[in-house]
Structures are given as structure tokens and as C-alpha cells.
């Protein structure tokens, strides 16, 4: 009887270990897409030997170096495993045999024990191996130049030894040289008024002509930064300062490959292989939304069709990054940040913020703004057409009066906060007064219809938004209808981009809210964005509405409805961790002013991109409209104005309406990047 007992005891422990082994294997695949192999490969994935287990690279090296010719140990932040790469399969096999399932002591005083579960890797995790998918708007052109030209370019750089000038600097982790304009790392910007004596070298002309010829880049660059990365060097995640440079950044890789890591604020991550002599072009989302970085490593795992998974050493990589200045001065953007950089805490702060960043801006841009507002939105137009003959209507925030005259059976009165817009509306023959939505100077209970399109999102506190709604309802008669539109935080639902995001050149049709194009975007944005988190639809009514809109019962979005406001800053923190985990000291300043770590700070939105926060300043770039030019002469203002917006998340508008007992929601829907409700006054 004793023998079988013994056997079953043993197998129990064995079964437990096997079970754990299988679970680890499943997790690797399910969580990180790491495919393991029964057949030995050169790369091992060692579970329980990761940074997440408190194991250091040195410890892993200590355990594994004696079993074969160790090529590299790769540790990923927050992962419970390490990759151990040998120069041959034999080494990997020996280590597997020796250490799989073995309990080892780790920690400074060998106080903790962990059991290694070791697998041969046949497919690298997506964090390590370059993905076939590219971030939206990213273009990689392989073999863009030939070897001779590459050599020529590398020869042309005169690295002056130990020189620290405006043109050339040795940063903590790489050497840089600037042409055209100096990129100042202290302020993460360039000064368009301070060109360098040397422009972009002539030797680059051929490749730049070719690049422009591809049609992906609209502007011929005027700034070049050459970076020299030695093996093991990298660059932290950043977005090139949106205000400083035009869309279409180009970077040529010379000498060695690199894997560029792209991170989306929603957490999506793509690794893009940049082979030597390739040109990468960042446009649209890949330029404005995704951050890019190079993780400091000495080698990259690259899968090739011929050789499967291989470890490629990084040599010295020299990148030529070409940019075109927007001409926006650093102080212009920082001035905008300074004028009202925080969300208001008091009523008086709120009024001040709106005065500077709503009222004064509309006053200034009125002529230009009106010129971009022609076409009524179909759903609003159809709502108006359905109003009975002889209805009395007021449009609060009527702008140039573009919703007037659609139904000539109505008596229409417009109100706008901007005297200049009211003037334009009046000149078009409409009834209008200047007034404030927070104190509507109209009799109570008399109007049949009240429109309030793209107004309430300019109010900077919830109580002011509530006050606006109660004023709208006050002027309505019982049974009167209100139609309210606000800009949506979610500019993409079910992968359908709003017109605002898709807008290429003309903004005439994108009328509810469409600041003019500051940066032209490429049509390549239509590429699917990877790894979209599921969109949880909390509001049943909206869900139905949306599913009819999207012709699907599943809603997904690149934007999650419940992400924290400053998710990007959280991500940037994670990224910072990632770098510091991989590399002992990697503290170069980030070059993205938008991801500054301030919870209540209003950041500046990049036009035609997704919103990063609910409360933002949205730039309006003035065109040289005659009227505006005259206005600008008088106040000597900047050419870019910043409007304050509170973007409504899904359900916010309905909540606002529910907080008011005087109304019921007749209809609520999403209309081209806007949340809309039609209310009836009870």
C-alpha cells in the first residue's frame, strides 16, 4: 500500500507543477501574444524571472550565462518573464534542461524563491517584434536610398569632437546636430526667428525631392536634426511639438535598424521596424496622437520569412529627421497656456476664462468663422422643417444665422454673445440681438422652439451648463421643443471617424464645430487603428441610436468612455517607467508639452485629432481675411486664437438634462462628432 501512496504524492506535486507550467504558457499567449514552441529555438521565455517578479537582469544573467553562449537578456517592464537569447539552439536547450521547473533563490539576500517555467519562443511578444500593422498615418518606405547615398550622407556629417554649439550637442543618450533651426530641448521648441547659419545640406536635396514626390508630405522641410544612437541608446516616448512643426515628419534611418515603439493614448502599442536606408513618414494620427520612442536595447528581435525569429544586433544608427516649421513662435503657445491654464474653481474664474477664451475669440474670428459656416447640418435642418407653421423660434448662439430661413413659416430670433457675429447675422436680414445664454433677455414660457447649437460646451463649469439649460427651458412654452448640440469627446465611434477627424481640406460641411485646418492630414488615416478597446455603451437609448447609426450591435471605439481625463499623462508615466526599467538612467526631457502632468491644466488641442481631455483649448488659426486683418492690426494679437471647450462624453448631455426637472428627452443621438438632444419642456 505504501508504494502507490508515494507515487500518487509525487505525481500530485508533479501535476501541480505541470498545471502551473501550462497556465504560464497559456497566459503568455493570451496576454502578450508570445507563442511557445516544443521544438527548441534560440530564445527562451523564462516565466517568474521578470521585473514584475523582482528579478533583475543581472540575476537572470547569473543563472543563464553558464549554460551556453548568452547573447542577450531582455527584460520588459511590468512583465513576469524575461527573454534569454542564446547564439545557438544548443545553449538554449541546455539551459532549458537545467533550469526548467527549478526553484531558485532570488533577491539581495537570496530570501525569496521562485520557480522558473521556461519555454522556447517561436513568436515574439508584440512589444518586441515589429508589427505588420502601422499606426494610422504612418508610412515606412524601405530601401528609400541606396548604399552609396547612405555612405555619402554619413560622410557629410562633420561631428566636431567635444563641440557644444547651437548646431551640435551631446545629449545624455545620443549626439545631435541641427540644421536650419536649432531644436531647443529646454523648451522643446524651435524659434522661427533664429535660423541657424547652415540650412539643410544640399546633399539631402535628392532624397527630399523624392520624398515630396511620394505625395505623403506637403511641405518641403526647413529643419533637420541628425541623431546618432549607439547600440543600447534610445529616445523616450514623445510627440514632436504639435505647434512647432507641420504634419508630415520624416526620418531616415542610416547604418543600423531600429524598432520604433508607437503608443496610442488608449494603450495601443505597435512596434515598427525601421531598416537601414528606410524613410519613415509620420502624418496624421501617427504624428499627433501616437507617441514614438526607441527603447534603449542592444539588439532587436526580428522575425523574417527566411530565418524565422532572429536577434539582430543594433549598430550605430544615424537618423536624419526632417521637419517643416509652422512658424508659430514658442511664446505664442506658451502665452496661450499662461493666460488661463487651469480649469476654473470659482464663478469669477469661469467668467474670466470664457471672456478670454470664448467671447473675445469669437469676436476676433467672427468674419473668418462665419466664412466657414455655410451648410446646415441635415438633422438640424430636418428638425426645423418639421416645426409647425407660425412657430416662434429663438436660436441661442445663432452665429451668422445659418439655420435661419430653412423653414419660412417660422418667426426666428437669434441671439449671439459676439457682436461681430450678430452683425453678420443681421446683415443677412435676420432678427438678432447680442445676449448671453446664462441670462437670456426673453420673456418666459413663450417660445415654441429653442435651438442651442455648439454653445453649452463653451461653458466651463457644470453649474453654468445647468444654468444655460434652465434658461433655455425658461423661455420655452410648455410643450415647446429645444434642440441642443455639443461637441463630443468621442470623435470616433465604431471606427467611424467624425467629419471633424476626417476633414481633409474643406470645412464647409463640418459646421457644428469645425475649427479650420491647421494641419492638412493625409487620407491614409483611413487605415484601421489597431487594438481598439471595446466601447461600453452605458446609455441604452444612445446605444440603440448608435447601433442603428453604425449598423452593428457592438460598439467599439478608439476612445474609451471611462478613461481618465489625463490618460495620456498616465501613459507617459508608464512610458517613463518602461524606460527606466530598461535602462538605468534615461531622463532626457520629453518633447511633448501636451502630456505635461497637470490634472487641472488646460492643454491645447491639436486640430483634426482626437481629444485628449474633456476640457481643452482649441486653436483657431486666423486666415488673412480682410476684416480679421483689420481687427488684428488694432489689437496686435497672435494669429492663432484658442477657444475653450468642455467636450461632452457619451451620456453627459443626457445627465445634464436629467438634472433639470422641467424637461423630458424626446430624442438623443450622436451626429458627426456631436452629442445631441431634442427636449420637450414639461
Amino acid at each position, binding site marked *: 500500500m505504501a508504494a502507490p501512496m508515494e507515487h500518487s504524492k509525487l505525481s500530485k506535486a508533479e501535476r501541480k507543477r505541470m498545471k502551473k507550467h501550462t497556465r504560464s504558457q497559456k497566459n503568455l499567449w493570451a496576454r502578450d501574444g508570445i507563442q511557445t514552441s516544443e521544438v527548441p529555438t534560440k530564445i527562451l521565455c523564462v516565466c517568474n524571472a521578470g521585473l514584475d517578479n523582482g528579478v533583475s537582469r543581472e540575476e537572470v544573467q547569473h543563472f543563464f550565462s553558464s549554460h551556453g553562449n548568452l547573447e542577450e537578456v531582455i527584460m520588459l517592464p511590468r512583465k513576469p518573464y524575461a527573454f534569454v537569447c542564446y547564439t545557438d539552439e544548443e545553449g538554449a536547450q541546455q539551459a532549458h534542461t537545467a533550469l526548467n521547473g527549478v526553484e531558485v533563490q532570488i533577491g539581495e539576500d537570496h530570501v525569496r524563491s521562485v520557480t522558473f517555467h521556461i519555454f522556447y519562443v517561436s513568436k515574439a511578444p508584440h512589444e518586441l517584434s515589429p508589427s505588420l500593422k502601422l499606426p494610422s498615418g504612418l508610412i515606412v518606405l524601405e530601401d528609400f536610398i541606396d548604399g552609396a547615398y547612405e555612405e555619402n550622407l554619413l560622410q557629410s556629417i562633420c561631428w566636431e569632437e567635444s563641440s557644444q554649439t547651437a548646431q551640435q550637442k551631446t545629449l545624455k543618450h545620443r549626439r545631435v546636430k541641427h540644421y536650419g533651426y536649432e531644436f531647443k530641448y529646454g523648451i522643446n521648441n524651435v524659434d522661427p526667428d533664429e535660423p541657424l547659419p547652415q540650412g539643410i545640406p544640399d546633399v539631402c536635396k535628392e532624397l527630399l525631392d523624392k520624398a515630396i514626390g511620394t505625395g505623403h508630405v506637403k511641405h518641403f522641410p526647413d529643419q533637420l536634426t541628425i541623431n546618432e544612437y549607439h547600440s543600447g541608446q534610445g529616445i523616450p516616448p514623445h510627440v514632436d511639438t504639435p505647434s512647432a512643426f507641420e504634419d508630415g515628419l520624416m526620418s531616415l534611418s542610416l547604418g543600423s535598424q531600429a524598432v520604433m515603439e508607437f503608443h496610442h493614448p488608449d494603450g495601443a502599442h505597435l512596434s515598427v521596424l525601421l531598416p537601414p536606408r528606410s524613410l519613415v513618414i509620420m502624418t496624421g494620427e501617427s504624428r499627433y496622437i501616437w507617441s514614438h520612442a526607441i527603447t534603449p536595447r542592444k539588439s532587436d528581435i526580428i522575425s523574417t520569412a527566411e530565418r524565422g525569429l532572429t536577434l539582430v544586433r543594433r549598430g550605430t544608427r544615424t537618423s536624419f529627421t526632417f521637419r517643416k516649421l509652422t512658424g508659430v513662435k514658442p511664446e505664442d503657445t506658451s502665452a496661450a497656456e499662461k493666460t488661463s491654464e487651469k480649469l476654473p474653481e470659482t464663478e469669477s474664474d469661469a467668467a474670466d476664462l470664457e471672456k478670454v477664451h470664448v467671447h473675445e475669440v469669437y469676436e476676433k474670428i467672427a468674419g473668418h468663422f462665419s466664412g466657414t459656416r455655410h451648410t446646415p447640418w441635415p438633422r438640424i435642418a430636418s428638425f426645423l422643417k418639421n416645426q409647425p407653421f407660425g412657430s416662434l423660434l429663438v436660436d441661442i448662439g445663432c452665429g451668422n444665422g445659418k439655420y435661419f430661413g430653412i423653414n419660412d413659416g417660422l418667426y426666428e430670433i437669434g441671439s449671439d454673445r459676439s*457682436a461681430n457675429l450678430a452683425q453678420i447675422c443681421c446683415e443677412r436680414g435676420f*432678427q438678432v440681438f447680442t445676449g448671453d445664454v446664462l441670462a437670456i433677455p426673453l420673456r418666459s414660457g413663450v417660445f415654441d422652439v429653442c435651438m442651442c447649437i455648439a454653445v453649452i460646451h463653451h461653458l466651463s463649469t457644470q453649474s453654468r451648463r445647468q444654468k444655460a439649460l434652465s434658461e433655455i427651458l425658461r423661455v420655452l412654452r410648455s410643450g415647446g421643443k429645444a434642440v441642443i448640440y455639443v461637441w463630443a469627446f468621442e470623435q470616433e465611434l465604431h471606427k467611424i471617424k467624425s467629419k471633424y477627424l476626417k476633414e481633409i481640406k474643406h470645412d464647409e460641411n463640418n459646421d457644428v464645430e469645425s475649427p479650420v485646418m491647421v494641419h492638412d492630414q493625409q487620407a491614409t488615416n483611413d487605415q484601421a487603428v489597431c487594438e481598439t478597446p471595446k466601447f461600453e455603451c452605458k446609455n441604452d437609448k444612445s446605444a440603440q441610436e448608435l447601433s442603428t447609426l453604425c449598423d452593428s450591435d457592438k460598439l467599439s471605439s478608439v476612445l474609451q468612455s471611462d478613461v481618465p481625463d489625463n490618460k495620456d499623462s498616465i501613459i507617459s508615466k508608464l512610458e517613463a517607467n518602461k524606460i527606466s526599467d530598461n535602462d538605468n538612467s534615461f531622463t532626457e526631457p520629453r518633447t511633448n508639452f501636451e502630456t505635461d502632468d497637470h490634472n487641472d491644466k488646460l492643454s491645447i488641442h491639436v486640430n483634426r485629432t482626437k481629444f485628449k481631455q474633456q476640457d481643452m483649448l482649441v486653436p483657431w488659426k486666423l486666415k488673412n481675411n480682410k476684416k480679421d486683418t483689420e481687427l488684428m492690426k488694432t489689437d496686435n494679437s497672435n494669429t492663432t486664437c484658442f477657444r475653450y471647450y468642455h467636450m461632452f462624453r457619451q451620456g453627459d448631455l443626457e445627465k445634464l438634462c436629467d438634472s433639470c426637472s422641467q424637461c423630458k428627452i424626446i430624442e438623443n443621438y450622436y451626429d458627426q462628432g456631436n452629442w445631441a438632444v431634442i427636449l420637450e419642456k414639461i
Partner: protein
Amino acid sequence: MKLLTHNMLTSKIIKGVQQGYPLGITATKVDVKEVDFNPDFVSRMIPKLDWPALCKAAEDVGHSAELPKEVVPEYETNEEFLKKAHHVLLQVEVIEGNLVCPESGRKFPVNNGIPNMLLNEDEV
């Protein structure tokens, strides 16, 4: 500003003002602009109006001569009445002048036909 629009405006939004209605008009420029007469449209407007306020406004701008002091019975079919209402409501426009709060005396300027109903911070 047409007098129909004026009929809807109030200065009740001023802090401390109880009614703020009707607003007095001191006009320096009044125009009369031809508008197509649509009796159905005018008769739809009548019930929404404060008629005494319309009479007062018409008086203020010097166009009260023919306007009845009260809404006549069965006005829907009274074309003569509707035409008079049409004229005062839709054809007479205040271009320059002031609207005056009946309680506080606060003036709201009318320029180029646009009343400025914005208040200062301390008035709200």
C-alpha cells in the same frame, strides 16, 4: 429690430428687476421695410404677443396711429386688423436708439438694428 422681436425682449435678467417689461424705446432711427403680407402667419403670432406692450412700442416709435388698442375678436378672419398688425409687427424696424428698462432705467443700445442685451458682471 422688428417690434415683434421687441415684444419678446425683457430686462428681467438684471439683478433686482421684477418684471423688466415692456422695454421702452427711444429711437433715433426707425425704418419701414416692405414685408410680404401673410395673414395666416400674422394670426399665428397674435396669441404669443403681449398686445399692450406692442401698442406701447408702436407709440414709442411713432407708428401707433392705426393699431387697435386691443386684439379684436375673430381676428383670424379680420384682414384689416391683421394688415395693421403685420405692419407694426414686421415692417417697422428700430435701427438706432435705446431700449429702456421700465424699472431700473438701464439702457440697452440698439445699433444697426441690433439690441445689445449683454449685462455687466455686476448687473447679473
